[in-house]
């Protein structure tokens, strides 16, 4: 069997194993979904009037703020879902079965690839669920073309992949599942200091560069442009650069820790 077909076959076996885990124990994934949905409802229904007034210079109504916040909430959903990947990788690494996998003639990377693909699929599923809630409370993206929709989907997948590899690296570096959950927390908190809830331009001047150039803001601005037709500018390539960079970094980090001798 060639290396590639071995890699595909073993990785899909590992993926099936991870999806089986997710199906048997859905509470982790479902818990992680709660945060973005609650924040969406909180900002729209509780803070909605003030936020809308701030966005539109005093004249906007709530539906405009719904449109503004949803792209950010979708990206935040990804940030939250990948915490699950960090936790399940850390849990897995503490189990004896990983030692068994290491002594079998299987594709070396398949254990991690199975986790990564599983996590990206969970991200897509979570984005669909949160997106459905958004549509239910009035979010519409009727102006976008099919191509823009496809590009938006591609961006969500790419962003999921990038954050997943980082989360897997965090899971590999953590001594326990709890520690992994804690070290991956920034992935769901980072959107709070991005343009997800308020435009970066309304933040204090010294803080604006941080908000503008962190990975979430360009990704959110690109998604917003694709779904709602706002200006994308340079954001699309900065977002792609971030995704590629984070993927490469997370991949190197994770595989290096996996290939190190276990204790």
């Amino acid at each position, binding site marked *: 069997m060639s290396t590639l077909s071995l890699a595909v076959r073993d990785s899909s076996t590992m993926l099936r194993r991870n999806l*089986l885990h997710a199906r048997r124990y859905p509470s982790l994934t479902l818990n992680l979904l709660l945060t973005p949905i609650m924040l969406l409802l909180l900002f729209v229904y509780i803070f909605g009037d003030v936020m809308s007034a701030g966005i539109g210079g005093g004249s906007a109504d709530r539906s405009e703020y719904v449109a503004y916040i949803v792209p950010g909430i979708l990206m935040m959903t990804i940030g939250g879902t990948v915490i699950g990947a960090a936790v399940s990788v850390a849990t897995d690494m503490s189990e004896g079965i990983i*030692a*068994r996998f290491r002594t*079998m*003639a299987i594709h070396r990377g398949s254990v991690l690839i199975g986790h990564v693909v599983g996590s990206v699929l969970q991200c897509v599923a979570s984005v669909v669920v949160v997106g459905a809630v958004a549509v239910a409370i009035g979010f519409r993206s009727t102006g976008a073309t099919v191509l823009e929709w496809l590009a938006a989907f591609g961006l969500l997948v790419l962003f999921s992949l990038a954050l997943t590899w980082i989360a897997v690296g965090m899971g590999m570096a953590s001594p326990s599942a709890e520690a992994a959950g804690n070290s991956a927390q920034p992935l769901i908190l980072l959107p709070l200091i991005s343009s997800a809830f308020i435009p970066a331009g309304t933040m204090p001047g010294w803080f604006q560069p941080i908000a503008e150039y962190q990975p979430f803001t360009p990704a959110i601005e690109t998604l917003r442009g694709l779904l709602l037709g706002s200006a994308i500018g340079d954001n699309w390539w900065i977002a792609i650069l971030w995704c590629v960079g984070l993927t490469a970094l997370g991949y190197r980090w994770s595989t290096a820790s996996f290939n190190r001798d276990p204790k």
Partner: protein
Amino acid sequence: MTTTSHSLAIEAKGLRKAYGDRTVLDGIDLAVPAGSIFALLGPNGAGKTTAVKILSTLVTADAGELRVGGHDLASEPQAVRASIGVTGQFSAVDGLITGEENMLLMADLHHLSRSEGRRTAAELLERFDLVEAASKPVSTYSGGMKRRLDIAMTLVGAPRIIFLDEPTTGLDPRSRHTMWGIIRELVSGGVTVFLTTQYLEEADELADRIAVLSNGRIAAEGSAEELKRLVPGGHVRLRFTDPAAYQAAAATLREATADDEALSLQIPSGGSQRELRSILDWLDSAGVEADELTVHTPDLDDVFFALTGGTNLPDQTKETVR
């Protein structure tokens, strides 16, 4: 002459491993013929698990020429992996899924076809008495069931060399005997078994060859019989219940080793019928009447304690303590 290396399933020369400045394996040599059971015996912390981890490609050695299944560990680890099966000390099962799903996972990773995988899984579940539990999550299994599943999973790919790291630790006596039966059955099919144990009885019971590991070195190696010959001969033990009778006997039998606490005397004896009769005759003529007489032949316990730092042995070279 290349035939010797071919008939060896596991071969290690000068195996070394240190964690930081703590030397775990200090240059050990091992030679395990194909189709035999080899036991690595040693107390906790002797380096048994490290040896298994290295030979099963889990951990890299610092030094040593190592071959498993005819393949060099350093240059062809995947070929080694293809010929081995490993059951580690801590169960290598997936607790979140069922026993059957664990078996099918192994079948998939060994690239068996769907029908072949199902058949192999069903056969092994049957053989290890896990049919009833097959559809239950492994997290609900008892320790003995997890061990059996663990071994069943190891056997899915029909490995020619099997590593078992303390296969019976934590098992009740019945499960232990079941496990021994399983191990014997494996070897009757031509498989080589490399097991570690801290139970002397287990090594004596199962192994063709035993190596005693102590402080990262092989203290002795050989068959159980050969090892037993390393320690001085056996003895006859006389026990008394009446202190007065004990005192009288101790005064008469001057060459016996006396244990005042236990009211017992030990007379050196090889344990043959002739030696025993002469002792009995002598006891009769001396008018000694013991309440209990036991014949003690040297067993692996004596070897073990002698080699791993218990009593001093005249014929074993001991390192000077620095």
